[in-house]
C-alpha cells in the first residue's frame, strides 16, 4: 500500500520522460547546437573575489617598485593609506553607532603593517540592553610572495553586554581579550626528493572576563606546528603527508578557583592522489587526538551545568578525543559521461573524566555517487545517490554498560533532466526520493521513526525576443512520517501535496511593465490510524490560492510608480465521511482571504538623492465553521515616506550614504512603539 504514491509519481515521470524524449528526438536534427539552452545549469557563476584593502595597497606598491621610469631607490614607505569610517543607525529595534580608523602601510621590502581601531555602541529599544565594543589590532606581515614568510600581530578585543530583565535585575558580561600571535612559514622547501611546507605558530592569550558575577580568566600560551610534504611518485601519482602538533599551557580561573590548564594534540594525515587519463581522485587517512585539562562547572550526563545541591561546583576536567577519518574520492569522465564517487568513514571517541557525559563513541559512513551526461544536444541528465549511516553511543559516567546506539540512516536518490523543448524554451524536471530513519538501539527512547519524501518538479520557462517571459511550474510531493514505536505511532501520517504555478512578465512599453503570477496549492493529510478507536485524528486538506499582480510605470527617467495587488485565499477542511467507492467527503472548517494593495513611488531629482513613499492597505477576512460559526474582518495599513543620499567623489575615496524614513502604521497588531517611528542611518567613509 505504502509504495503506491511513489509508483504514481514514477508513472507520471515516465509519461513526461517519454513525451519529452519523443519531442527531443524529433527536434534533434533541426536544432543548432549554439542555441542549445539545455546546458548544464549546475555550472557555477565564476568571479574573482575582491581584494581586501591591504592586498590592493600591496599591489599598488609592487607596481610602483616595478616602475622603471622612476629614478633612484624606492622610498622606505611605499604606500600609506588611512580609512576612517563612521555609521549611525536609528531603527525600530535598536539605535547603534560604530566608528573605525584603519592605517595600512606598504614598505619597500613589500612587507605590510596594518593598524585598526574600532568602537561600537548598541542600545536596544525593545529590551533593556546595551552593548559596547572596542577592538584594536596591529599586524605585520613579510612579503607574501617569498618562500619564507612571517607575521606578527597584537590585538585587544573588549566587550560589555549589559541586560536588564523584565523584573529589573541587571546582568553584565564583560570580556577583555588580549592576544599576541607570531607565525613563521617556509614553503616549497626541497629536501630528500620531496617538497615540504613548514608552519610554526606561537600564541599568547590573556583573557579577563566576568559572567554572572563570576571571574572567567585565562592566561595561556600555545605553540603549534605543521609539516606538509608531497612527493611525485610518477607522472600521475602524488603522495602527501601532513603532521600537525599543538601544545598549550597556562592557567584558568573560574569563580574563586585557579588551576593550571593544558592541551596537547597531534594529527597525522597520509594521502595518495592520482590523475591519469579519465581517472582523477585520491585516498586520504587522517588520525588525530588531543587531551585537554581545564576548570569547568560540574555537568550532568547531557553536558548541562548541574551544580544544585553539590559541594564541589567547579571541577578539574580532563577531556580526551581520538578520531580517524578515511576517504576515497574519484571522478571518471569517459565518452562524455562523468561519474563521481565518494566514500568516507569517520570514527571518534570522546571522553570526560569529571563530566556526567562519560565517554561517547561516534561512527559515520557516507557514500555519494553521481552520473551525468548529455544524451543528445538537447538534453542533459544527472543521477545522484547518497547514503549515510551514523551512530553514536554513550557510556554515562559511573554506568556499567553503554546506553545503546542512536542510529541515523538515510538514502537519497535524485534525478535531474534539462531539455531544450523549443527555441528559448526549457523544460526542467527534477525527481527526488529520500528515506531517513532514526533507530534507538535497546529502546533507549521511543523516537524510532522513518520519513519518506518523494517529489516531482517540472518547470517550463520561455523568454520571447521582446523579453516577454512565461513560466509554468508543477510540483507533486509525497511525505510519510512514520513513528515505529506504539507509544508514538498514533500520529503517523501520509501527506500528498500538489502545486501548479503559472506566471508571466510583460514589458508592454519602455515605460510600462506588467507581471502576474498565480499559484494553487493543495495538501491532503491522511492519518494512518485515524480509524482506530481512541485515536483522535481526522484526515484533512488545506488549499491555498495566490494571485499577485504588479504594474510598474516609469513616468520619467526620475519618477517610477509601482502598484501591487496580492490576493490570497485559503481554506481547510476535515474528512467527514467516505462511501463504498472509496470517495472521501470533507466538511470545511475555515476559509480566509487576504487582499493587499500596495503603492510605491520613487523620485530621483538628482543622481545622489532618492525620495520614496510607500503605502499599503490590507483586508483580512476569515470565516470559521463548527459548533458556532464565526466571522472576522481586520484592516491594517502602513505609510512610509523618506529619502536616501548616496554621495561620493570621483575616486570613491570619500563616500556619504544616509537615509531617513518616517513610518505610520495602523492595525490590530500595531502597538504604541511601532505605530509611529523614525528609521534613519548615516554612513561616512574617507580613505586618504
Amino acid at each position, binding site marked *: 500500500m505504502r509504495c503506491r504514491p*511513489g*509508483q504514481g509519481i514514477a508513472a507520471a515521470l515516465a509519461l513526461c520522460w517519454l513525451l519529452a*524524449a519523443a519531442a527531443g528526438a524529433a527536434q534533434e536534427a533541426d536544432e543548432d547546437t549554439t542555441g542549445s539552452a539545455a546546458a548544464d545549469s549546475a555550472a557555477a557563476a565564476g568571479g574573482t573575489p575582491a581584494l581586501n584593502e591591504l592586498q590592493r595597497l600591496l599591489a599598488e606598491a609592487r607596481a610602483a617598485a616595478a616602475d622603471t621610469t622612476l629614478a633612484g631607490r624606492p622610498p622606505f614607505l611605499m604606500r600609506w593609506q588611512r580609512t576612517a569610517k563612521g555609521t549611525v543607525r536609528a531603527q525600530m529595534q535598536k539605535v547603534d553607532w560604530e566608528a573605525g580608523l584603519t592605517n595600512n602601510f606598504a614598505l619597500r621590502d613589500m612587507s605590510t603593517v596594518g593598524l585598526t581601531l574600532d568602537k561600537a555602541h548598541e542600545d536596544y529599544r*525593545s*529590551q533593556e540592553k546595551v552593548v559596547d565594543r572596542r577592538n584594536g589590532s596591529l599586524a605585520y606581515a613579510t612579503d607574501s610572495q617569498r618562500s619564507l614568510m612571517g607575521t606578527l600581530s597584537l590585538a585587544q578585543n573588549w566587550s560589555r553586554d549589559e*541586560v536588564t*530583565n*523584565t*523584573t529589573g535585575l541587571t*546582568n553584565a*558580561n564583560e570580556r577583555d581579550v588580549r592576544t599576541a600571535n607570531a607565525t613563521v612559514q617556509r614553503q616549497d622547501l626541497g629536501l630528500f626528493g620531496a617538497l615540504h611546507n613548514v608552519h610554526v605558530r606561537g600564541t599568547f592569550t590573556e583573557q579577563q572576563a566576568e559572567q554572572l558575577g563570576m571571574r*572567567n580568566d585565562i592566561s595561556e600560551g600555545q605553540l603549534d606546528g605543521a609539516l606538509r610534504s608531497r612527493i611525485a611518485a610518477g607522472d600521475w601519482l602524488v603522495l602527501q603527508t601532513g603532521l600537525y602538533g599543538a601544545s598549550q599551557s597556562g592557567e584558568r580561573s573560574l569563580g574563586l578557583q585557579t588551576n593550571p590548564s593544558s592541551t596537547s594534540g597531534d594529527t597525522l594525515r597520509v594521502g595518495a592522489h592520482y590523475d591519469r587519463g579519465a581517472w582523477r581522485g585520491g585516498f586520504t587517512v587522517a588520525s588525530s587526538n588531543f587531551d585537554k585539562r581545564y576548570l569547568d562547572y560540574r*555537568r*550532568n*550526563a*547531557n*553536558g548541562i551545568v548541574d551544580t*544544585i*545541591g553539590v559541594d564541589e561546583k567547579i571541577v578539574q576536567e580532563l577531556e580526551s578525543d581520538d578520531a580517524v577519518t578515511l576517504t576515497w574520492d574519484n571522478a571518471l569522465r569517459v565518452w562524455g559521461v562523468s561519474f563521481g564517487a565518494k566514500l568516507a568513514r*569517520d570514527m*571518534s571517541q*570522546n571522553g570526560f573524566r569529571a563530566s556526567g557525559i562519560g565517554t561517547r563513541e561516534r*561512527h559515520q559512513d557516507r557514500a555519494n555517487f553521481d552520473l551525468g551526461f548529455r*544524451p*543528445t544536444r538537447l538534453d542533459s541528465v544527472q543521477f545522484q545517490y547518497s547514503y549515510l549511516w*551514523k551512530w*553514536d553511543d554513550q557510556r554515562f559516567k559511573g554506568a556499567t554498560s553503554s546506553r545503546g546506539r542512536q542510529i541515523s540512516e538515510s538514502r537519497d536518490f535524485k*534525478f535531474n533532466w534539462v531539455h531544450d523543448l523549443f527555441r528559448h524554451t526549457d523544460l526542467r524536471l527534477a525527481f527526488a*526520493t529520500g*528515506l531517513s*530513519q*532514526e533507530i534507538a538501539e535497546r529502546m*533507549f*527512547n521511543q*523516537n524510532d*521513526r522513518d*520519513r519518506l519524501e*518523494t517529489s516531482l518538479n517540472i518547470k517550463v520557462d520561455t523568454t520571447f525576443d521582446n523579453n516577454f517571459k512565461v513560466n509554468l511550474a508543477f510540483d507533486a510531493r509525497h511525505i510519510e512520517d*512514520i*513513528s*515505529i*514505536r*506504539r*507509544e*508514538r*505511532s*498514533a*500520529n503517523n501520517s501520509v501527506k500528498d501535496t500538489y502545486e501548479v504555478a503559472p506566471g508571466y512578465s510583460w514589458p508592454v512599453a519602455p515605460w510600462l511593465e506588467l507581471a502576474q503570477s498565480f499559484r494553487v*496549492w493543495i495538501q491532503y493529510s491522511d492519518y494512518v*490510524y485515524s480509524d*482506530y478507536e481512541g*485515536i483522535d485524528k481526522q484526515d484533512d486538506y488545506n*488549499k*491555498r490560492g495566490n494571485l499577485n499582480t504588479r504594474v510598474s510605470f516609469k513616468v520619467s527617467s526620475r519618477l517610477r510608480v509601482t502598484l501591487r495587488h496580492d490576493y490570497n485565499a*485559503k481554506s*481547510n477542511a476535515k474528512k467527514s465521511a467516505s462511501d463504498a467507492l472509496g470517495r472521501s467527503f470533507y466538511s470545511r472548517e*475555515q476559509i480566509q482571504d487576504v487582499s493587499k494593495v500596495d503603492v510605491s513611488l520613487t523620485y530621483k531629482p538628482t543622481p545622489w538623492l532618492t525620495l520614496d513613499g510607500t503605502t499599503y492597505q490590507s483586508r*483580512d477576512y476569515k470565516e470559521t465553521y463548527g459548533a458556532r460559526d464565526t466571522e472576522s474582518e481586520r484592516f491594517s495599513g502602513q505609510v512610509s515616506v523618506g529619502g536616501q543620499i548616496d554621495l561620493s567623489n570621483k575616486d570613491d575615496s570619500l563616500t556619504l550614504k544616509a537615509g531617513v524614513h518616517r513610518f505610520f502604521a495602523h492595525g490590530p497588531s500595531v502597538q504604541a*512603539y*511601532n505605530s509611529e517611528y523614525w528609521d534613519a542611518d548615516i554612513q561616512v567613509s574617507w580613505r586618504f
Partner: protein
Amino acid sequence: MTHYRRGSFLAIMILSLGLIPALGGCLFEPRDAEDPSGGSITYLDQSQPENVLANLETAFQNKDAAGYERQIATEFSYEPDADTQASYPDVDWSTWNRDTEIAFIQNFFNNVDGITANLNEVVIQGEWDGSTADLRYIYAVTVTESGGAVPYRASVTLNFRLDGTFWVLSRWFDEQGEQDPQSQTPLPTLGQRRGAFAASGGGRASG
C-alpha cells in the same frame, strides 16, 4: 552516430524508469509501525503563529521530535543570549540552522525524562502582517533528568513566517534569562542546552 546516441538515450531512459519504482519499493520502504497503544498527540492547524507556538509546546511536552520538526522553517536560525555566548565562546552560533536545530532537539528529547513547557507564560508584545510575525514572550520550561529538575526561564523573540499554507518558526532569539517568580533566582535560557549540545560534539558530522 546520431542514431546510436538516440538509441542509447532511450535505452538508459527505459532502464532508469524501471529502476525508479524498484528503488521506491525496496531501498526506500519505511519500516512497519507498531499499532498505537497510546493516544495521539493533537497538533493545531498551523494557520496562525499562535498555533505554531502551541504546537511547539505540545512537542516539548510529548518529547515528539517529528512534531517539533514540522513547526520550524527551512531557513531557521537560532540566536543565543549573552550569557550563553559567554559560556560557550567556541560555538559558532551563526551557522545554527534547521539541521542543527533538528539534531539538537532529537538529542534533547531522547536524553531527558520529561519536559513541562509554557512558551508564552508572559506575553510581552507581538506584531505581524500577512506573511511574517514577531512575537515576544517569557517562557518557562522545566526539564526532568538525572533524577532532578532543571528550570529554564527567559524572554524570547520568536519570528514566524508563512510558508505555503502554513506558518512556521523561522528564528528563535533568546534575549535573556529571567528570574524565578517565587525564589527570584536568575534562571538560564534554553540556549544553555544548545550550547552544551554543540560543545560536546553535537555539531560534528557524526554527532
